[in-house]
């Protein structure tokens, strides 16, 4: 048995009841002996830790609601602990902890951003050769489409002044649609959480003026509407095509901007009033 095989045995079977081959290897390998000693020390230390504190019910309510929203789970078992009225969890969840909400939103967005980047790397690394396809570009000047345009303009497949096939060959193969990586459920949850936290923060904004300044108020609210429209557009698109990476990146950027805008709106209100 080699060191790597022993590591695999330790991972799958734990520290106890090692097979005879593993024991034989351990007897003659100081490196693996050290590894086993370290793992044993970690296990002992971990057992000394106090038991994990049970998270509050509202966390489970939120997680379950999000999972149901995303279609990851469908059953509707009660998640609130017995004896606690359902409205208690909801009320706790909606407590106006505005700054905490924004902070959580930012964290969720940052985590989402990390996942998106991580996902993006994986996408490139796991691309597989498939049938070559031409570059889709327009050769002549075009007019910018209106934002309300539903379908992308049809472009002639004509690459950079060379025949399409040549360019496609020079650029190498492109991945097939089947190999486009789907976002992981955790990534979706992060996105869902970001949206949820940001929406709740937005709903806690005062309806009256935020600042002492009508022009600034109008600009802030107008830009919030702009962002919300863009986010809705990206969300609708992602619902249709969850593996659309470009849309995902734009959605992530829009969430970050919204989190910053809400923070700025809340700060304005606090410093003025």
């Amino acid at each position, binding site marked *: 048995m080699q060191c790597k095989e022993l590591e695999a045995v330790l991972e799958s079977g734990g520290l106890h009841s090692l097979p005879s081959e593993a024991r034989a290897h351990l007897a003659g390998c100081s490196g693996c002996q050290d590894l086993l000693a370290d793992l044993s020390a970690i296990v002992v230390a971990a057992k000394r830790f106090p038991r994990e504190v049970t998270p509050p019910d509202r966390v489970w309510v939120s997680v379950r609601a999000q999972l149901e929203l995303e279609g990851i789970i469908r059953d509707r078992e009660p998640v609130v602990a017995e004896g606690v009225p359902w409205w208690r969890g909801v009320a706790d969840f909606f407590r106006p902890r505005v700054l905490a909400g924004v902070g959580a939103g930012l964290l969720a967005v940052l985590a989402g951003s990390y996942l998106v980047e991580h996902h993006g790397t994986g996408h490139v690394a796991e691309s597989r050769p498939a049938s070559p396809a031409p570059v889709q*570009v*327009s050769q002549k000047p075009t007019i910018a489409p209106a934002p309300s345009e539903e379908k992308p303009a049809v472009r002639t497949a004509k690459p950079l002044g*060379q025949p399409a096939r040549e360019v496609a060959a*020079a650029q*190498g*193969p492109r991945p097939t649609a089947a190999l486009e990586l789907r976002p992981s459920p955790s990534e979706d949850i992060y996105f869902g959480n970001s949206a949820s936290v940001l929406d709740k923060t937005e709903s806690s904004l005062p309806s009256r003026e935020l600042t002492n300044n009508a022009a600034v108020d109008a600009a*802030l609210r107008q830009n919030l509407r702009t962002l919300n429209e*863009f986010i809705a557009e990206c969300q609708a698109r992602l619902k249709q095509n969850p593996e659309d990476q*470009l849309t995902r990146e*734009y959605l992530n950027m829009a969430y970050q901007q919204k989190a910053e805008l809400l923070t700025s709106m809340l700060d304005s209100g606090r410093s003025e009033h």
Partner: protein
Amino acid sequence: MLPQQKMVRGLLSVVGAGLFLSAAAPAFAGTTEQQEERHFTVKDRPMVIINNIVNGRIEVKSWKNHEVVVTTTMVPGKVAVDAEQVGDRIDINASSLVDGVRQPHEVEANFQLLVPEQTELQLRTQTGLILVEQVNGDMKLQSVAGDINLKEVSGYIIVKTTGGSLVCTLCSGRLEFNSISGGAQILQPSLSNVNVMTTTGNILYDGDFVRTGLYTMNSGRGVVEVRFSGTDSFDLNAQTYRGTVDNQAADFLKPDTHGKHHSQSKFSHSLFGTVGQGFAKVELSSYSGTIRILKRD
């Protein structure tokens, strides 16, 4: 009409006019702007911070003296301006003294600054223009609805606006711009690192790309336009989901010769290519706007 009646009416109109003027006088006096000049002697490279949470312009120009001169124009009694100097740090705050929603001109503080050429800036305003000329140093400029105009500045430049636009002429160093509805125009730059992001604004980059430079420009719904010169050298990656890639420089762009496999998404229109040797890296994207690439004459 009897002469007595005429006299009484004349008197009444004189008294009425007097009453009107006496009532209106404080109001007019209240909107009279006042100018105040403060001088701060500095030794080395100063850091000037202006936090203008009312409206107003901020103009910064450089001079050869080791002194920062701040000229403030405001309506007394409506805006409070506090300034302090700690070493080479000069910190200025302007805040409103009145309650209730006001029109922008009513709560306004305008700043004109003269600073040494090597100065770091951190400026924040709400609706007024921020103008910076011939200053070398890192700067962070923030505005809600005010535009930002930079001319011949260099350093690490961070610009954040909610709706204000940026015009950056002859800038060098590194630029980061982030806005929701503001656009960005980068003209004749010598920037080695550019990162521009706007949700609905347009982006125009008209100038050379520095060798080994990194240029990322993204717009959600706006047009992203790049005008390069024939002597430039860069790899290009342009992507749009619902817009179009308008390549008006097909004669200068050739397929990427560096052997990198570009994975084209089935969801977007993409263009990969190289100009010259491909020393710099240019990444453009627009969610639903046009990406236009053209060569300057």
